[in-house]
């Protein structure tokens, strides 16, 4: 045992080892669901004992041993319960079974982690189940940590995980690395789950929201892992770049009290320059391919924002052109709204407002608070203070985000005061 390792370092190590141990266990025992529970128990006991007793010589072997023991207990309990003697339970001690595995030509720990990621983001799962399973099985988070990130009770999160496993069983999902052509087909749902975790976490840096920034961190870590395994997949590169370039602004986008600071008023000195440099490099790589996808183009837009020294230096014509490309690739009402902002920045607020008129006919947007929020912003720029205040007010009444509501309410009040003053 080596002592003196910080709790944070231990946590980091556990999260990294979790999918490796789980991959091994699943291959040895063939039961993903039970193996996942066993690894979770091993992680919980490591998190309790390592900070006190010090790090074991071989942390991965330690976890595997403890998880295998749990697994055997589980199998024995099942056997007893069902009174079914012929149930597959090897008499070879688990330690030896796992020792045998090392001699075989087994997949690398990274391949295992990737196979687990594809499994956890299986299309048969609901979004919330896929998110829960991904964070626990691949991310190595405990059920409690995941529950706190989403502000739900631990028991509820545990149920999401067991339902996810049930859905996987029903869908006949198997633990194996998909063939390259299947991987390409299934990649979008993996990227979507990672992006949802990131968006949930890309949030304020104070109070209750602190736990959410952990989710952004986890999403970035898992995407980095995916990128390390599939460095040539353009959309993986694109999503990784998008996360880096967005997360680089995290500390600047929220005030100490948790309130929103819009992009044009952020203190750009707080932006993470090295993350931006890395993101920009990846964007150029993603865009140089034959057919850049929506994540790569969104990353390119984020890069243009990040590269402007001051808000007024932003290359809006380029952003506008990129939105044209993005909407050509995947028509999306939120992107269309953002394009209207870019249009206003290039051709004046009136052009943006006219575009919003058209977008308002889209039933997905007509009642959406973002339409009013963008309209308010453009009306303000056009000098129509009273109408802008009304639109901010209406947007505030429709959002489901508390910091956003506060931001919109304060904008409305500010404009009303200005109109009166």
């Amino acid at each position, binding site marked *: 045992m080596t002592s003196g390792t910080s709790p944070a370092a231990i946590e980091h190590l556990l999260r990294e080892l979790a999918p490796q141990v789980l991959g091994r266990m699943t291959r040895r025992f063939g039961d993903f669901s039970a193996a996942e529970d066993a690894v979770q128990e091993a992680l919980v006991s490591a998190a309790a004992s390592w900070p006190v007793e010090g790090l074991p010589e071989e942390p991965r072997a330690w976890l595997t041993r403890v998880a295998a023991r749990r697994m055997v207990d589980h199998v024995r309990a099942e056997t007893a319960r069902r009174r079914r003697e012929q149930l597959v339970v090897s008499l070879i001690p688990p330690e030896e079974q796992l020792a045998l595995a090392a001699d075989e030509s087994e997949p690398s720990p990274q391949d295992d982690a990737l196979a687990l990621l594809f499994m956890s983001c299986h299309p048969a799962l609901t979004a*919330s189940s896929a998110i829960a399973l991904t964070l626990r099985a691949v991310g190595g988070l405990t059920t409690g940590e995941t529950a706190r990130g989403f502000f*739900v009770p631990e028991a509820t999160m545990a*149920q999401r995980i067991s*339902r996810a496993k049930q859905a996987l069983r029903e869908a006949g999902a198997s633990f194996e690395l998909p063939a390259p052509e299947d991987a390409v087909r299934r990649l979008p749902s993996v990227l979507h789950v990672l992006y949802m975790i990131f968006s949930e976490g890309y949030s304020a840096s104070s109070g209750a*929201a602190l736990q959410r920034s952990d989710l952004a961190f986890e999403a970035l870590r898992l995407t980095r892992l995916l990128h390390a395994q599939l460095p040539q997949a353009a959309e993986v590169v694109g999503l990784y770049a998008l996360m880096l370039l967005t997360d680089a602004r995290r500390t600047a986008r929220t005030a100490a009290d948790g309130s929103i600071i819009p*992009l*044009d008023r952020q203190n750009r000195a707080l932006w993470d320059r090295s993350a931006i440099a890395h993101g920009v490099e990846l964007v150029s790589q993603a865009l140089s391919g034959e057919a850049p996808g929506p994540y790569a183009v969104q990353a390119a837009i984020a890069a243009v924002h990040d590269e402007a020294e001051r808000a007024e230096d932003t290359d809006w014509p380029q952003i506008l052109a990129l939105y044209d490309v993005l909407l050509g690739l995947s028509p999306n009402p939120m992107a269309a709204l953002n394009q209207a902002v870019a249009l206003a920045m290039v051709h004046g607020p009136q052009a943006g407002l006219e575009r919003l008129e058209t977008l308002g006919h889209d039933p997905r947007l007509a009642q959406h608070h973002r339409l009013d929020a963008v309209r308010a912003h453009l009306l303000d720029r056009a000098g129509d203070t009273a109408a802008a205040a009304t639109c901010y007010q209406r947007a505030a009444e429709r959002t*489901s985000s508390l910091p*956003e509501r506060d931001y919109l309410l304060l904008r409305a009040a500010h404009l009303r005061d200005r109109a009166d003053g």
Partner: protein
Amino acid sequence: MKYILMMNSAGKGPYQIARWPEGDIQRHIGFMRDLNQELQRSGELVGAEGLAAPDQAKLVRAGQDGKPITDGVFPETKEFLVGYWIIDVESAERAYAIAAKASAAPGPGGKPLNMPIEVRGVMSAPPPEYA
């Protein structure tokens, strides 16, 4: 998305559970317990509470000195919150479906009560970035 489902009842409305026959009360309590277990098992339950009877309720205001002034006399026709669920679901439609289920809780004679359930969004979404 998180929603709160609020079950309201008029002071003299149908939800006068205390006056029902034993079998009806048992069926009603059983229904509510099953509903909560179902929501827990589906991974959608954030929290649920039933509230104490309205005749125990007090309206509280701060007086001039900041001390509480209580008022406990309510008109019998006033609507009261009987209980609530907070759920975390994939869509608004799912929240409405759960509300409809709760609304049809069995009343006297096992007949569905079809109580009004108020469904409101909980402000829990992460904020977007404003350009």
